[in-house]
């Protein structure tokens, strides 16, 4: 962990009055500054309790919690909370305040002047991708996805370094959820907050988390590691079980084409003669070849239809073209759908970077 620690939990326990066991059991956790840490686990694993102990909506029974090196209970509780953004599942938007009023909540609590508040509100609306005309609407007039965006904007209003998110996307439909998740990642690239996110959806945790913390029932820590590491090496049978099926595919979703070395592929230049093309196909053990001209890949052609030298007009476009940013999972999907069983890698400048076959992919995840 290279970054400084934003939040540190040391031997934190929580026992609810009247409960037999612990809700959170001697938890040690370090949350690095500027990362997204996803807490995930089945119900009763204490993930939400853990989150709420950070902004002291729940007080720990024992143990210490430090925020930026200072004990969380050093400040008056409301001051602590004003410095930590908080987003919850049902959004918790104030029905009696407009979108603007909702976003302005913490700035107003902090006593910002009107002009500064207004400016910040507008900035945030742009940041979370809402339209400014929505500022004067009430939450009831918004869709679930829009409400969730307002919730995020409200949490970010006073520019807190830390953002806590409690199952932020579980109340919206899968399509909106996927979009909101992408937006969060995009937002994070711009704002670099320390984000602690609670979810019961392991795929969401793997997608959003720079680190994933898997908790078991009773608040027991099972594993805390980057997603790829967890998928590659589950620390316990519980973790393996919790991750579910298709671990390989899940790992592929985390890796990108740039993470593996593509094959050069059976590529001939326009003007090459038929003999050299046949040798090329033999070498690659395929019955087709790619056609390149001036560093650009024009397409491909069956070897059996080659007549004389390689010509540009014989090229059929590749069905599966990926960029270095494409995940291996979707590259794989493209490969199985293509006639040539390859995905062609073209970078952002349009340069040909090679071909990915199933062999390269399975080598990459090994």
């Amino acid at each position, binding site marked *: 962990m290279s970054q400084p620690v934003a939040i540190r939990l040391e031997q934190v326990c929580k026992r609810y009055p009247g409960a037999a066991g612990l809700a959170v059991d001697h938890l040690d956790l370090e949350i690095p500054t500027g990362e997204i840490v996803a807490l995930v686990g089945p119900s009763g694993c204490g993930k939400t309790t853990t989150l709420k102990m950070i902004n002291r909506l729940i007080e720990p029974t024992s143990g210490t919690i430090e925020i930026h090196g200072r004990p969380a209970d050093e400040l008056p509780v409301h001051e602590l909370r004003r410095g930590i953004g908080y987003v*919850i*599942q049902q*959004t*918790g938007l*104030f029905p009696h305040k407009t979108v603007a009023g909702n976003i302005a909540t913490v700035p107003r609590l902090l006593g910002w002047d009107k002009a500064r508040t207004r400016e910040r509100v507008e900035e945030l609306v742009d940041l979370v991708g809402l339209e400014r005309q929505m500022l004067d609407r*009430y939450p009831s007039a918004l869709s679930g996805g829009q409400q969730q965006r307002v919730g995020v904007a409200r949490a970010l209003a006073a520019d807190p370094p830390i953002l806590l998110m409690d199952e932020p996307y579980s109340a919206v439909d899968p399509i909106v959820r996927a979009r909101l998740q992408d937006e969060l990642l995009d937002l994070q690239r711009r704002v670099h907050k320390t984000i602690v996110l609670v979810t019961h959806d392991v795929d969401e945790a793997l997608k959003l988390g720079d680190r994933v913390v898997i908790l078991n029932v009773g608040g027991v820590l099972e594993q805390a590691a980057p997603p790829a590491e967890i998928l590659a090496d589950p620390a316990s049978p519980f973790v393996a079980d919790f991750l579910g099926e298709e671990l390989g595919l899940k790992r592929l979703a985390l890796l990108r084409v740039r993470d593996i070395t593509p094959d050069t592929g059976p590529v001939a230049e326009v003007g090459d003669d038929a003999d050299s093309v046949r040798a090329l196909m033999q070498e690659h053990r395929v019955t087709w070849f790619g056609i390149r001209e001036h560093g650009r890949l024009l397409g491909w052609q069956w070897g059996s239809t080659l007549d004389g030298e390689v010509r540009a007009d014989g090229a059929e476009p590749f069905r599966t073209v990926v960029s270095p940013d494409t995940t291996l999972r979707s590259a794989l999907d493209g490969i199985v759908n293509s006639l040539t069983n390859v995905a062609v890698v073209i970078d952002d400048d349009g340069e040909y970077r090679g071909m990915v076959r199933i062999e390269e992919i399975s080598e990459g995840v090994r």
Partner: protein
Amino acid sequence: MSIFATRHDRLLSWEWIGDHTDEIWERTLQHLQLTGYAVGIGLVIAMAMSMVALRWRRAYAPLAALSGALYSIPSLALFAILVPYTGLGFRPVLIALVTYTLLILLRNIVAGIDGVPRSVLEAADGMGYEPWRRFLAVDLRLATPAIIGGIRVATVTVIGLVTVGALVGSGGYGVFINDGLSRNFTTPIIVGGGLSIAMAIAFDLLFVAVQRLTTPWSRAGMAP
């Protein structure tokens, strides 16, 4: 043929109304005054009771039972019971009416504040509201429609009950009804009853309007 010989053939005598405009105005003021005091005092007491009930949950059931028991005493009986202590007139009726408003207001205030969504309160806490500030700016604000709803029902109910108060000398429209009854003369009955109904409906509509004005968020989703 009967002790109930009709004094007037018509149901409504305009002549009588013309002769009594001053008294009608006077009775209207009395009726309004009694209603206003009863609901106002009732609101203060019910608010205090609600604070207690919200702070100590166990207090709600006995408080509701107490106000429920007071509520079940027939108005005429309660007025009459109070008379030896307060004398005839305004006071026994005011005290009785205040007790009647308690049940309605207590229930509405507590239900209104209880009805504020948990997620909203959690978000408010999470953003760092101090407890008292949250109570005023969030809990109470969001309970306003329910509280106004309670004031509305209490007011309309009290307006009807004030008419009975005339029997123990409180004044108000009931005086006309009582007068008409004792003389078998329909005009004052219709005037007193009609004005009481009109006043009740007017306040009902007034509070509907107030309710709408204080909850702009429940309409159309646009700020005014």
